[in-house]
């Protein structure tokens, strides 16, 4: 049967490929919002990450230098968002939108300067497969375990879960997002924790951008393609829990992969309706139709010390 053919290893591989940037960025979104800072600039941070990774990789030839550049660039722009929203207590939504506009403008601006093109960069090496014995040879599974970025993503899911729920750092981060006054009274530095949350989101979203750039072996104009907003949807669908957010991201990736596979076997399901799934689900979850999702209490509220 056509419909059963699509549930194959290829589908699993495709799901992972599509999901990696969603997973990384959704966890970043969660880190920022758990600390109480809404970050809708993630879309732009992905773009910055992709661009900086290409620059680093192109000029040094090393994929790891590219990753370092991406994380630095993502954190720099995230820091800008943090300064505007935490230090100047400005509206975080507007700041995030401005970061997105700035990222689109700045990447295109420097794309022309470095690569003399308004659409794409030069070719880059990307990152090589690891040489994994035995399992490395299995189709699909081998591709997954020998891809350093997929392994890194898996590791980061664990690391984020562990630090948010099992360390004093995570407790403090969640405290300043839920009740900054109480946290402050207990001696937690509210501002510093919030800066850290935003910076982590910048680093993670930038890694999402690295994945896109290394996958295509180049930077293309606007290559974030709305993924930052899907990540935001995954964060809400995952109820502001980084691991559930990562699972939601995986689910959104799965829906897209199913649609692509359906197309290859000739089932004509309008792609646009599959694209709507994350957005519709987010609205449904926010409206509490089957289970209500609520953000951290002080999410989006600047902290004003008396």
């Amino acid at each position, binding site marked *: 049967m056509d419909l059963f053919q699509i549930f194959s290893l290829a589908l699993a591989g495709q799901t992972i490929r599509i999901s990696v940037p969603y997973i990384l960025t959704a966890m970043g979104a969660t880190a920022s919002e758990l600390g109480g800072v809404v970050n809708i600039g993630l879309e732009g941070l992905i773009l910055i990450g992709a661009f900086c990774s290409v620059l680093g990789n192109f000029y040094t030839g090393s994929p790891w230098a590219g990753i370092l550049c991406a994380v630095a660039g993502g954190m720099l722009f995230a820091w800008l968002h943090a300064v505007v929203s935490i230090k100047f207590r*400005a509206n975080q939504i507007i700041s995030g939108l401005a970061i997105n506009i700035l990222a689109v403008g700045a990447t*295109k601006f420097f794309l022309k300067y470095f690569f003399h093109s308004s659409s794409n960069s030069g070719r880059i090496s990307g990152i090589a497969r690891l040489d994994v014995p035995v399992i490395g040879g299995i189709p699909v599974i081998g591709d997954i375990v020998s891809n350093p970025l997929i392994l890194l993503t898996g590791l980061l899911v664990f690391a984020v879960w562990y630090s948010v729920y099992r360390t004093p750092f995570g407790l403090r981060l969640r405290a300043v997002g839920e009740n900054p006054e109480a946290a402050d009274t207990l001696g937690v530095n509210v501002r510093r924790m919030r800066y850290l949350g935003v910076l982590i989101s910048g680093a993670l979203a930038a890694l999402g951008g690295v994945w896109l750039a290394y996958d295509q072996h180049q930077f293309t104009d606007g290559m974030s393609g709305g993924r930052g907003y899907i990540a935001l949807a995954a964060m809400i669908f995952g109820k502001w829990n980084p691991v559930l957010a990562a699972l939601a991201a995986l689910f959104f990736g799965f829906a897209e992969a199913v649609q692509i596979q359906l197309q290859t076997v000739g089932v004509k399901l309008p792609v646009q309706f599959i694209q709507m799934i994350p957005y519709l689900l987010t*609205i449904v979850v926010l409206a509490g139709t089957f289970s209500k999702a609520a953000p951290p209490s002080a999410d989006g509220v600047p902290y004003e010390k008396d």
Partner: protein
Amino acid sequence: MNKNTKAFLINLGVTLAAVLASLVVGAFFILLVHANPALVYRRLFEGVILNPYGLAQTLFKATPLIMTGLALALGFKASIFNIGAEGQMVIGGFVCAWLGFTFTGLPAALLVPLCLAGAFAGGMLWASVPAVLKIKTGAHEVITTIMMNFIALALTNYLITAYFHLPETVHTQLIAGSAALPRLDHYVPAFRGSPANVTLFMAAALCFAFWWLIWKTPYGYETRAIGLNPSAAETGGIHINRNLLLTFLISGGLSGFAAVNFIMGYKHYYEEGFTQGVGFMGIAVALVGQNNPFGIIFAALLFGALSHGTLVINALVPKDIIQILQALVILFVISSNLLAKKYMARLTED
């Protein structure tokens, strides 16, 4: 000088300083690519204001920005953050164009109002979902409207590709000639070549309507009361939900109406991506214009001029410097609000 005038001047001064600061930071970007900032800014100024065609282009670009700026400002008055202006404009534009190329037999006297009403109604329809969800379930409109933007894009993309596109294009057929709005170059020959059209006057009229609605009607009084203190407003006998619904719907309608400039005034068809971020930029316009209809006109002219400026300076520096400038203006203006508040606090102490 009374206190209101002083407050106004402080706000104006801080906003202008923020715009100036963006130009200074923008100059560093220009220097980075070995271009001359002074030359770029001079060319920009000449190209968007001093030559008549450039001025017309600035007016053309400012027209929809005034409308989305008003849409956002109206929402802000009642503490509604309508980021959905982009999607509402998309749906408004689609409905407007669909009416225009479907009811081609109607005379202009009927078809023009029908298309205008369609644009407004399309925007209202799209705003009604987040509006009702906000009132009935408390779902925050920032997220629901963002999601509605993407749903609008996907839905219209489906409708265009599956049913309405002309072969080899991403746009629909032309609307009836009777639904096309006259261009300003009919009256001002120096504007020749610019699609600036009479939608500009509708935008100006809407600014007056906005002012009247907010300051001279019971509805406006209620809206302002809710924005200042919702629980006090409720205790005072104001039906909060009814007002929020109405405000959200009008905000959506204004966003939908912003599509008229492109569809009935310029290309005369619906095209994918025609909004060019005008819905999002409306946030910046409302912000810089401080939610005041006359401030919004100036802010829309500023952002409209920048938007046309991309073509003017392209030969000197990558045109994306304009987007960088727009983002910087937003960042500086929102950051300087705190500064303005501090000055204001000192003012009240005197």
